[in-house]
């Protein structure tokens, strides 16, 4: 009898020990194995495959964490529209509801829907995740730097940021309020008075010098040819002088607009770099520890 039970015990131990290799009758497509493969892909940053595997898992076993990870996968692939949709679809009853709502707002922000982001923040679900509530408030204020809507009051703006970030935020705020732009009209007037001066005003120094040289050079050649009685050549050079002069005025006005576009581009770049470095003021989810 003892031997019989001993045999059964060994038989069962060997049978169940196969669980450690996870190669059971359910095969590689058992829920456990699907999740294991999905986690492996996620940690390898193969997010699209991971998302597909997580979706496959969800079809078998509903799971809050998996729903959140699918949405996070799309966010990490910079597919913010899909991420926003999925974060917003996580139910209120889920333990990940609050983090999902925060990530939903972040996705709206990252996809450039700043107005929608502000609307949802102001009129959407109240947030009580104490870790990230302040972060979303900071993001809300930060969004004003990226749109053309009127800025809030400086104190109200700075209040939403941590003490260590206030100096940087103030410099962003000051730039946004009074950008160091150049005026096209002033540039054109400068170039009317002295050819090339408008380009120097917009920091295109060598362009300004060549505009000056070409206009004056053509003008001198016109004068010289008229003086020598070569009227035909004189008129050709007069036409060239008029062209260079008019072109220099036009070009200076255009240069001011390009200068403004340049500094705005650099400003947006700085803002985006700052956000990336600070993870949009929100905590990072690391499921791969």
């Amino acid at each position, binding site marked *: 009898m003892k031997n019989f039970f001993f045999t059964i015990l060994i038989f069962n131990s060997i049978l169940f020990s196969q669980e450690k290799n996870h190669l059971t009758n359910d095969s590689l497509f058992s829920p456990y194995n699907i999740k294991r493969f999905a986690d492996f892909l996620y940690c*390898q940053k193969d997010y699209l495959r991971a998302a597909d595997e997580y979706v496959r898992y969800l079809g078998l076993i509903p799971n809050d964490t998996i729903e959140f990870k699918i949405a996070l996968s799309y966010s990490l692939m910079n597919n913010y529209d899909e991420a926003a949709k999925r974060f917003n679809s996580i139910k209120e009853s889920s333990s990940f509801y609050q983090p999902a709502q925060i990530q939903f707002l972040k996705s709206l922000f990252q996809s450039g829907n700043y107005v929608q982001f502000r609307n949802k923040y102001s009129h959407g679900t109240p947030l009580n995740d104490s870790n990230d509530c302040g972060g979303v408030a900071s993001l809300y204020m930060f969004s004003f730097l990226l749109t053309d809507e009127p800025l809030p009051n400086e104190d109200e703006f700075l209040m939403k940021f941590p003490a260590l970030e206030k100096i940087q935020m103030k410099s962003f705020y000051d730039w946004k309020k009074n950008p160091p732009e150049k005026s096209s009209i002033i540039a054109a007037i400068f170039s009317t008075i002295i050819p090339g001066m408008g380009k120097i005003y917009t920091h*295109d120094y060598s362009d300004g*010098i060549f505009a000056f040289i070409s206009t004056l050079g053509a003008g001198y050649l016109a004068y010289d040819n008229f003086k020598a009685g070569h009227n035909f050549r004189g008129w050709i050079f007069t036409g060239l002088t008029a062209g*260079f002069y008019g*072109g220099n005025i036009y070009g200076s006005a255009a240069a001011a*607009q390009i200068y403004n*576009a*340049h500094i705005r581009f650099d400003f947006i770049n700085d803002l985006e770099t700052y956000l990336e470095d600070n993870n949009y003021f929100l905590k990072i989810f690391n499921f791969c520890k």
Partner: protein
Amino acid sequence: MKNNQFIFTIILSFALFISFNSFAQTDWVKWGKADFSYQIKNPVEQRNYSFDLSNPERLVLKSLANAYWFFISDVDGDNCAFNPTCSNFFIQSVEKTNIVQGFLMFFDRFTRDMDIFGKLNHYPRVPDGHFYDPPSLYLLDIHFINYIPPSVIVKNE
């Protein structure tokens, strides 16, 4: 020898580990079989000698441009540092605006072409090394200005 092979394997494994994490981005979009050709692409841009029959003014302008390109510009070599070339820039400027504004844009472009010092830190480049300077930047309309920094190589114009 065996120690060297072991060390090499460790280094290679580490490099592969780093590479796996950085290369996974290829598969963020589903892909299929690629239509890959052995042929080498001609880096030299081909001229567009077509005629614009939409109106007589454009027909005359394009005919003059084609004649200039064929008899003069294609013979005197590659002298313009920009893309599009100055003559192309002129054609496109007139097409987008009018003859007067087109001339002003052209003269401004010609002056900037003469500037041998200021191009490097001002304009982005196209793959063949020319500086990218489209007429859309000079229409005096901020909505058409798509600023590209000088460090960028512009591939699809």
